[in-house]
Each structure stands twice: as structure tokens, then as C-alpha cells.
């Protein structure tokens, strides 16, 4: 018996190989360098991420699949690669000082960040359900460990364990969904063939397909923190190290949405009526619960956790629209969200310093008088998250709600806009505290390291730039979603 090895080009997964190589290098350097020697882990990670970004640019406009149809090589994947790389690079920049504060400048932290990014890329580019499952798990397992990074801290441990148990539980649901889909399609796991096979499979497998769809929604709903699968989010976001909270809020969510969109648009176009209906309900519940509960929060990390739940709701609206503008707005909003959320967490780390001693929202009182630049940046990010022009948050929400109206979901758009109004309340409260209340206590000097300054500059400029000139990004996103024939 001879087997023919399918042809493949390694360069089509170049970014993955670079990230894996960098992570392995960091692990080896960490393990073999003598104790107490300062190693350049953040710099190494940034170098690897930079090379991966260059490789992504070189791959841009490639189309099709590779590795025997296991991997998509298309602009949809590359757009997400860029978002993940940006998110991880900003996370690396906000991490260093924070970790040194805790005496935890660990190599494995950066290695795990890179492995998690690799998992996200697998999710965004997976053309076979094995790849999607593997990507989900590579990402999740790395993030479970990162959430529990502060081993001596009971909060961090508890957050990690909750995340692991509920994460594994939801993965099992997703897996069962994959198994049911495997049965319904008559033994195929390729996303490409699914729609055709499901169409010809006939009515007998309809229950299996519906069950599979429901289980997929549970599995992905957990990862994107949609109601009613959101219970873990506030606890885990509060307990995890702040830099990891930022990473989870942007990276994990974006990756899960990438895979979710691909599976829904490619495998289930025939069941569009069903999933649109379910997601409509989930979107409304998620937006409303996230925004209403966020009002009651006094811990800034918990508030941002509920804000992230609410944003998952807005993004679900983009999926419900299920038209071209909806997919475009999904990509646009995820990039905008990465910028504004990481910026906000950068400020949280700067204000919270000394092992996170200032995490109450009242610690922001009078920040505008003591540190005008920092307060201005925070105000900008809050405006962006609330969706006030001329920030990226406004344009993103505008696209999402236009897509919903275009698809005929007027009520969904109205509920979304009303939710945005509710959210203005708690975002602006931070701004009001910063500028109109006397300081509760002298905050003292804030340690502006070059890395954190860079993060705040990049995110603030980015939020304004893509908010005022959205055209370029819009065109990129339109280019990226051309791969979906059903839109």
C-alpha cells in the first residue's frame, strides 16, 4: 500500500509556525537560563508577533484551502489574524510592568499568550471541525492556566477553576454537537461540504441537525459570554490577572465569533430561519442583562465584564442580520472593541497599581485633576465603548444596527439602540467621577512606563482614527467577507 501525501505549502500557515516557534523558544530560554537572570521575554514575543503580522500581510488576497482542505487560506482568516496579533501585542505591552509588580515576570506567561493566539488563529482558519475543536481547546487551555497565574492568590485560583470547569463543560456540548453534525451529514466534517450534504440528507436527519445547531450555539455562546451562558464571566474577569482579563475580553471573544460566524454561514445556511430566531432572543437578552447589571457594579473589572457581555450582545445582532453588512460590521466592531477595551484595561492597570489595590470605580474620583492625560484617555475609551461619535465604537454600532435594519429586524435595532443609551449611564459615570468629584485619596504618582504609554497612545489614536475615517477598514472587511456565498 502506498499513500500519497497531499501537497501543501508551509507558508500558508506561516503565522502559526512563527508563533509556535517563538513560544517554544521562550519556554526553552526560560527553562535553561539560570534563576534570577533577566530574560527578554516581552521583546521576544513582540518580535514573533511582528513577524507573524508581516507573514499575514504577505498572505493577504490568497484564497482557497490548504493541507488537504483542513485550513482556509482567505482574507476572513487573515483579517482575524491581524486582530489577534494586535490584541496579543497590546496585551504583552500592558503585562510587563503589571507582572513585575507581582514579581511574576515568567516566561511561560508569554509562551502561553502566544499559544492562545495560535489557538485563536486555528479557530479563525479551521476548515474542518477537528481544526475548530483543536483551536478552541488550544486557546482555552492556555487561557485557563493564564487566569490562574497568581497561584498564591485565592481569587485567581478560584477564577481559573471556575473557568476550566465551565469551559470544559461547554466544550463537551460543542463536541456533542459536532458528533451529531457528523452523523447528520453522513460522515463529513469539512465545513465546505456541510451545507450541500445537509441539503441532500433529507428529512430523516432533521432532528440530528437541529440538535447539532442547538449544541453549537451553547458551546460558542459560552465562549463569547452570551446570556444565558454568561455566569462565569464576571467572576472570572474579576479574579484573573487584569492583563489576562483584557486578553480574554478581546481575543477569546473575537476568535469564538470568527469560528461561530464561519460555522453558521457555511454549514447552516439551510437552517437560517432557526438560528436567526434563537440568536435574536439571545442577542436581546445578552445586551439587556449586560447593560442593566453593569450599572450596579462598583468594581471596575466587574463593570467591564458586564460591559463585555453587553458587547457580545451587539455582536450577536451582527450575526442575526446575516447579510453582508452584518458580517462586515462584525469584523469592524471586533477590531474597534479590541482597541477600546485594551485601552480601558491599560488605564485600569495604571490606576490599579500596587497589586491591584485601586479597583473600585470610586478610585477614579478626581483623576481628571491629578492625571489629566490618563483621565482624558479613559474618558475617550468610555465614550467609545458607549458608542458616542466620533469614536470607532459609534461607527461600529452604526454598522451593526444598519445591518439589522437592512435585514428587516427593526425591533432588534431599536432594542439595541435603547441598550446603548442605558450603557451611556455607567460609562459616563466613570467620566463624571473623574472630572466632577474631588479625589477620595491622593493617588500619588502613576508609573507611566514606555510600554503602557505606547498602548494608550496606539489605542487612543486608533479608536479616533478608525472612527473618523472608517472607509479603509470598511473596504478591508468587505474584501474579507466575500468568501461567504450565502450572504
Amino acid at each position, binding site marked *: 500500500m502506498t499513500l500519497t501525501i497531499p501537497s501543501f505549502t508551509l507558508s500558508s500557515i506561516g503565522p502559526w509556525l512563527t508563533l509556535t516557534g517563538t513560544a517554544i523558544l521562550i519556554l526553552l530560554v526560560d527553562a535553561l537560563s539560570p534563576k534570577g537572570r533577566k530574560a527578554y521575554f516581552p521583546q521576544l514575543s513582540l518580535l514573533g508577533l511582528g513577524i507573524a503580522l508581516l507573514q499575514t500581510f504577505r498572505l493577504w488576497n490568497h484564497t482557497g484551502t490548504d493541507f488537504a482542505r483542513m485550513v482556509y487560506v482567505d482574507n476572513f482568516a487573515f483579517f482575524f489574524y491581524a486582530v489577534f496579533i494586535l490584541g496579543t501585542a497590546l496585551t504583552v505591552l500592558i503585562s510587563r510592568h503589571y507582572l513585575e509588580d507581582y514579581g511574576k515576570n515568567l516566561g511561560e506567561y508569554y509562551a502561553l499568550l502566544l499559544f492562545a493566539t495560535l489557538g485563536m488563529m486555528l479557530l479563525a482558519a479551521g476548515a474542518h471541525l477537528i481544526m475548530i475543536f483543536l483551536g478552541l481547546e488550544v486557546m482555552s487551555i492556555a487561557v485557563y492556566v493564564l487566569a490562574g497565574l497568581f497561584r498564591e492568590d*485565592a481569587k485567581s485560583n478560584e477564577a481559573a477553576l471556575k473557568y476550566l470547569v465551565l469551559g470544559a*463543560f461547554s466544550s463537551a456540548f460543542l463536541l*456533542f454537537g459536532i*458528533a451529531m453534525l457528523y452523523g447528520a451529514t453522513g460522515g463529513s466534517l469539512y465545513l465546505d461540504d456541510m451545507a450541500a450534504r445537509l441539503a441532500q440528507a433529507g428529512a430523516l436527519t432533521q432532528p440530528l441537525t437541529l440538535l447539532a445547531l442547538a449544541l453549537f450555539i451553547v458551546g460558542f455562546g459560552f465562549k463569547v459570554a452570551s446570556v444565558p451562558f454568561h455566569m462565569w464571566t464576571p467572576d472570572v474577569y474579576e479574579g484573573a490577572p487584569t492583563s489576562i482579563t483584557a486578553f480574554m475580553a478581546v481575543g477569546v471573544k473575537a476568535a469564538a465569533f470568527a469560528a461561530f460566524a464561519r460555522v453558521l454561514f457555511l454549514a447552516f445556511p439551510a437552517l437560517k430561519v432557526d438560528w436567526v430566531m434563537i440568536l435574536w432572543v439571545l442577542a436581546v437578552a445578552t445586551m439587556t442583562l449586560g447593560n442593566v447589571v453593569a450599572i450596579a457594579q462598583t468594581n471596575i473589572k466587574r463593570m467591564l465584564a458586564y460591559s463585555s457581555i453587553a458587547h457580545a450582545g451587539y455582536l450577536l445582532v451582527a450575526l442575526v442580520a446575516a447579510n453582508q453588512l452584518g458580517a462586515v460590521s462584525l469584523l469592524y466592531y471586533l477590531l474597534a472593541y479590541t482597541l477600546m477595551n485594551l485601552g480601558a484595561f491599560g488605564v485600569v492597570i495604571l490606576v490599579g497599581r500596587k497589586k491591584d489595590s485601586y479597583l473600585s470605580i470610586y478610585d477614579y474620583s478626581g483623576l481628571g485633576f491629578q492625571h489629566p492625560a490618563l483621565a482624558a484617555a479613559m474618558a475617550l475609551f468610555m465614550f467609545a465603548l458607549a458608542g458616542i461619535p466620533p469614536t470607532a465604537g459609534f461607527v461600529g454600532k452604526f454598522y451593526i444596527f444598519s445591518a439589522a435594519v437592512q435585514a428587516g429586524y427593526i425591533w432588534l435595532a431599536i432594542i439595541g439602540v435603547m441598550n446603548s443609551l442605558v450603557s451611556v449611564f455607567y460609562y459616563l459615570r466613570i467620566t463624571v467621577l473623574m472630572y466632577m468629584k474631588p479625589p477620595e485619596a491622593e493617588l500619588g504618582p502613576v508609573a507611566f512606563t514606555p510600554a503602557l504609554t505606547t498602548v494608550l497612545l496606539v489605542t487612543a489614536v486608533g479608536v479616533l482614527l478608525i472612527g473618523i475615517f472608517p472607509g479603509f477598514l470598511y473596504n478591508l472587511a468587505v474584501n474579507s467577507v466575500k468568501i461567504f456565498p450565502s450572504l
Partner: protein
Amino acid sequence: MVVPVSYYLALSVALFALGVIGVLVRRNILVILMCIEMMLNAVNLAFIGFADHFKAVDGQVFVFFVMTVAAAEVAVGLALIVAIFRTRATVYVDDLNILKW
């Protein structure tokens, strides 16, 4: 004798449901992890059944990946349990209440 695929499926669904119930009602974190393993093994059974029925090998390959991933998850879970036991001396989820559950 050929076992029809529906038998595998019924057993798999039953195992999966038992696992879900176990995760929801048990309070010992180790037992919860074991119940999650049971859910994963129910999935494996469904994959094997379908792979045999359709003579498509993808399902069997999937089982390998599920098993390795499950092992990685359990290793991380055990490590976290040990860490929690050191700081809190408990393995019961009801005692994990610093963060509002």
C-alpha cells in the same frame, strides 16, 4: 451480528446526559471533572459509532484528538485543584465563594 448505529447513539446520549446531571448536582470538584470526562467519552462513542456506520475515518481521528485534549484539560484541572487545596484546604465548589458565583 451488526449492532445498529442507533444503539451506539442511544448509549452515547444516555452517558452524556448522566455526565451533565453529574456536573450539575455533584459538589466535589474531582467528581465534577470525572463527569466531564464521561461526557467527552460519550461523544467519543458517538463518533466511533458514526465512523463505523458511514465507513468514514474522520470520526476515529477525532476521537484521538478528544482524548489528548481531555488529558490536557484534566492535567490543568488537577494542578488548579492542588493549588486551591493549598490555599483553601477544600475540594468542594460550595466553598469557592470569594468571587460571587
